[in-house]
C-alpha cells in the first residue's frame, strides 16, 4: 500500500518524518537494518531518488547510519532516539497550542483543559 503523502509539502521531508516516527515508536529496533532504498521506494510508491534523499537526511540526523557494504541501520544510541522522540513530541504540542490559540484559548487555559481531560479518563 502506498504511503499517504501530502503533495503540498516536499515528499522527502514527509518520508523522513514518517521513518523517524517508526524509529522512536519502536517499529524499528535500535541497530535494526533498514530495507534497501529500492524496496522502501517501492513500498512507499515514490521515486528511488526521493527515497535516497530522505535516507541522506536521516543519516544527517544521526538516527540512521550506513555501512558501506551492508546497508543502512538504525542507531544503537538510545539517548539519541529518546531525544528525537522529545523533539517530535514538542513539535506536536506546539502545533496543538497554535490551534488552540486560533480558537482564542490561552496556553494556561489549554493546560487546564488537558488536565481536566486527564482526570476524566
Amino acid at each position, binding site marked *: 500500500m*502506498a504511503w499517504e*503523502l501530502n*503533495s*503540498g*509539502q*516536499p*515528499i*522527502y*521531508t514527509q518520508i523522513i518524518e514518517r521513518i523517524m516516527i517508526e524509529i522512536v515508536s519502536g517499529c524499528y529496533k535500535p541497530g535494526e537494518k533498514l530495507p534497501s532504498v*529500492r524496496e522502501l*521506494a*517501492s513500498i512507499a*510508491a*515514490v*521515486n*528511488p*531518488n*526521493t527515497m*535516497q*534523499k530522505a535516507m541522506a537526511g536521516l543519516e544527517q540526523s544521526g538516527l540512521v547510519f550506513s555501512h558501506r557494504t551492508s546497508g543502512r541501520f538504525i542507531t544503537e544510541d538510545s539517548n539519541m532516539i529518546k531525544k528525537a522522540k522529545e523533539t517530535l513530541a514538542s513539535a506536536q504540542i506546539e502545533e496543538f497550542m497554535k490551534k488552540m490559540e486560533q480558537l482564542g484559548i490561552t496556553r494556561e487555559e489549554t493546560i487546564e483543559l488537558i488536565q481536566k481531560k486527564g482526570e476524566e479518563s
Partner: protein
Amino acid sequence: MTAIVECKHLTKRYKNKEALSEIDLTLESGRIIGLLGPNGSGKTTLIKLINKLLVPTSGELLVAGEKPGVESKAMVSYLPEQSYLGDWMYVKDALDFFKDFYEDFDNSRALNMLEKLNIAPNDKIKSMSKGTKEKLQLILVMSRRAKLYCLDEPIAGVDPAARDYILSTIINNYDENATILISTHLIADVENILDDVIFIQDGKIRLHQDVDDIRSKQGTSIDHLFREVFKC
C-alpha cells in the same frame, strides 16, 4: 550530472501552426521528469522529435550528444500514445518482436511481470481489454535497459487501480542512471514519483523545476500550481 537530451532553439512547424517554438531545454540523466501541459501544447511533438518520428523545422536536438538516429533509438525506449501491437499478434509475438528489435530487451524480466498479471504468452492481443493492452505495452517498453524512456500518456486510458500498477511498474524498473520522461495531464496521479516537472504551453516551456523545490518554496502541490498557471 550529464545531459541525455539537449534542445537549442528547437522549432517544429506544421504548415501554418507552430507546435514548438524556439525551445531551449536540457534533460539530465537519472531523473524522472513530468512533461505537463494542456492538450495541444506540444508534448507529443517533443517526444516524437526525440524519437525521430518527426524532424525539427529549425534548431537543434541532441540525444546523448548525437542527432536522433539509429544509435539514439537503441538507447531510447518509447511508449507511444497509441498501440502499435497488431491485433493478429499473440503475446509471444510481441515479445519476439521486441527481442529482435532491441538488444537491450530483457525477456525474462518481461515474462516475470506478465506472469504476475496472469498474462500468458499464448494470449491473443485482440481479445485483451484496453487496460490490459496498455499494461502489456508498458511492460514491453520498461523491460528494455534503456538510457531514456519516453512515456506518452501512459496512464490516460486506465482505471485508478491500473494506474497504480503502471506507476509501480515504472518505479520498480527504474534504474538510477536512466531518465524517464512522462507526458500526462493527470498530474495528481504522477506527481509523487517525479523529480522534475516541465510545464509546456503553446509550444513554449513555461517552467522547468525540481518538484520538491516547488513544494517547499510555494507550499503547493504540482497539481495546484498547474491549475494556477494554466487557468483558462
